[in-house]
C-alpha cells in the first residue's frame, strides 16, 4: 500500500459490543415509537386462536395429549405467537429497510459490519418473540392453567425458536425478488409449519408420514418443549427438542448472513 499514508492500525473484531449496542439502541428507539401496534398484532392474533380453539373446540373436546384442551392449546399457541412475532418481522422489516428505506445502508456506513447488523437485528426480533411468546401462557392462566417452575424457561424457549424464525425470515427477505413473493412463503411454508406443529391437535393422531414430517418442523419442537416445561420434563427428549431448535437457529443464522452479505455489499 501507499507509503506516505499512515495512521492507526486499530484492528477490529468480527463481533464488537458497541456495534450491537448501536443496532439495538436504534431498534429500541424505533420500538418506543411502534410498540403499541407491534405488540397488538403480535399478541392479539395468537390470543384469538387460543380463545377460538380453546373455548370453541374445547366445548367438544375435553382432553388432548393428556391435558385439558384449553391448556393444550394455550401451551401450543406459544409457538404461534413466536412465529408471528419473528418470521414476519424478519421478512418484512428486513426487506423494507434494505430495499425501500435503505436504512441498512445508513447503518453500514457506521462502524457496523453486515454480520453484526444481521445478528443484532435477528436477536432483537427474537427478544421480542421471547416476550410475546409468553402471552398465551399468561392468558391461559385465566382458564385454569396451573403455574409451574418449568414455565420460567418458556421465554427462553420462545427466544430460541424466535431466533431461528427471525433469521429464516431475514434469509427469505434476501432471496425473494419482490416483496409480493412473501405470499408464497407464508402460504407454502409457514402455514403448513403452523398447522403441523401440534398446537391444536396431537401429532400422534396424524398419519405416520405426517409424524415424520413434524420432526423437521421447529415449531413442533417448540410446542413440545413448552408443554414439557409446563407439565412435566422428559430430559432426554427435551434435550433433543432443544438441540433441534439450536441447530435450526444456527442454520438459518448462517443462511441469513450469507444471503444478506451478498445483498448489502456490492
Amino acid at each position, binding site marked *: *500500500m*501507499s507509503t*506516505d*499514508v*499512515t*495512521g*492507526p*492500525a*486499530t*484492528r*477490529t473484531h468480527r463481533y464488537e459490543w*458497541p*456495534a450491537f*449496542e*448501536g*443496532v439495538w*439502541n*436504534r431498534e429500541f*428507539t*424505533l420500538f418506543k*415509537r*411502534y410498540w403499541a401496534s407491534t405488540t397488538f398484532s403480535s399478541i392479539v392474533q395468537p390470543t384469538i386462536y387460543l380463545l377460538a380453539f380453546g373455548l370453541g373446540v374445547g366445548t367438544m373436546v375435553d382432553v388432548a395429549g393428556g391435558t385439558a384442551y384449553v391448556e393444550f392449546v394455550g401451551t401450543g399457541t406459544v409457538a404461534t405467537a413466536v412465529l408471528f412475532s419473528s418470521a414476519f418481522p424478519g421478512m418484512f422489516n428486513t426487506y423494507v429497510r434494505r430495499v425501500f*428505506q*435503505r*436504512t441498512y*445502508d*445508513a*447503518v*453500514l*456506513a*457506521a*462502524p*457496523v*459490519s453486515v454480520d453484526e447488523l444481521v445478528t443484532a437485528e435477528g436477536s432483537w426480533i427474537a427478544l421480542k418473540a421471547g416476550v410475546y411468546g409468553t402471552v398465551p401462557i399468561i392468558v391461559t392462566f385465566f382458564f385454569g392453567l396451573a403455574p409451574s417452575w418449568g414455565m420460567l424457561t418458556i421465554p427462553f424457549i420462545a427466544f430460541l425458536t424466535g431466533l431461528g424464525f427471525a433469521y429464516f425470515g431475514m434469509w427469505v427477505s434476501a432471496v425473494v425478488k419482490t416483496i409480493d413473493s412473501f405470499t408464497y412463503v407464508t402460504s407454502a411454508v409457514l402455514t403448513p409449519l403452523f398447522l403441523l406443529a401440534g398446537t391444536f391437535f396431537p401429532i400422534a393422531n396424524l398419519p405416520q408420514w405426517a409424524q415424520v414430517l413434524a420432526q423437521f418442523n421447529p415449531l413442533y419442537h417448540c410446542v413440545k418443549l413448552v408443554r414439557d416445561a409446563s407439565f412435566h420434563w422428559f430430559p432426554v427428549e427435551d434435550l433433543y427438542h432443544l438441540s433441534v431448535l439450536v441447530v435450526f437457529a444456527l442454520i438459518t443464522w448462517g443462511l441469513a448472513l450469507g444471503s444478506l452479505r451478498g445483498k*448489502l*455489499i*456490492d
Partner: protein
Amino acid sequence: MSTTALELRDVVKSFGPLTAVDGLSLAIPRGIVLGLLGPNGAGKSTTMRMLTGQAIADSGEINVLGLDIPAESKTARGRMGVVPQQDNLDTELTVVQNLAMFAVLYRVGRRRRRDAVDRALALAQLTDRADAKVTELSGGMKRRLLIARGLVHDPELILLDEPTVGLDPQVRQDVWTLIDALRSEGKTILMSTHYIEEAERLADDVAVMSHGKVVAQGAPLALLSEHVGTEATEFYGPPDRLADVESRAQAAGLVTRRTGPSVSVLGSESAPTAVLAGLGDGVGRAANLEDVFVLLTGERLE
C-alpha cells in the same frame, strides 16, 4: 500524521458486464474539499461505496486515513462521515432521535453524546426543529439533517455523495453554506457532484471522472488554465453558421465545443484578434469547468 487522507490505486469494480470503475487512481490530501465531477454513471457513487467497504473492488488498492479497505473498513468508517445521495433517514422519528441513534452507532461516548447531538444540530441549523418529526421537515432541512447525521461523531473525513441533487436553488445555497462551514473547519471532504457550479464554488481540487476513471485532477483554475484558458467566445446562429464558425476556428488551430445552440471557441483570450474577428460577432464569457469536462471526455454533464 500523513498529508494524504485517502488514496485509490488502479481500482477496478465491475457489475457483471458493466465496468463501473475502471482503473481509478486518486489521492486526496488532508484538509481540502475534492470535487469528484462526472455525469451520472461515471462511477462516482460506486467509488464512494468502495471507500466505506460497502462495495468491494475487484482489483486495486484503497487506503483511507491510513487504513486498508476493505480489511479495516469498520475502523475507517468510525473516522469518516458518510452522507448518501438518497435520503435514508428514519422518517417517523424526530430530528434529535435520528442524530442520537447515530451517535450511538458511531460509538460516541455516553457522556459526550448530548454535546455531539447539540453540535450537529447547530451545524445544520436545526436546533429549533430538534423535536420535529422528519416527515415534518422541508426537503432542504432533511438534507441538512442527513449531513448532520454523518457529522455527529465529528469525523476526520466526510464523503458527500451528490449533496444537492434534486434540491431547488435556494435550498442548494443553504447546503453549500453548510459545506463551506465544514471546509472552514479544515475537514477533508470528498464530494461527488455533476453540478459544475457546485464543484467550482466548493472544491479546492476537482477530479474529472468519466467512464470509471479520473481523466484530470487539479485546482479549478489550474484545470482551466491547462486545458481551456480563461475565456471563451460563444457564437450563435443557424446550424450552417455554427458549422462554418467551427470549421474556420479549428482550421486556425483553435479549440471549439458545441454548447447547445452555440459554438464556443475556447482559450479565446490567446486567439489572434484577426481570426476571432473573422468568425463574426461573438459573446465573451469566462471559461468554466464544463468546458474542461466536455473537452476531456466528449460527454455532457446533464
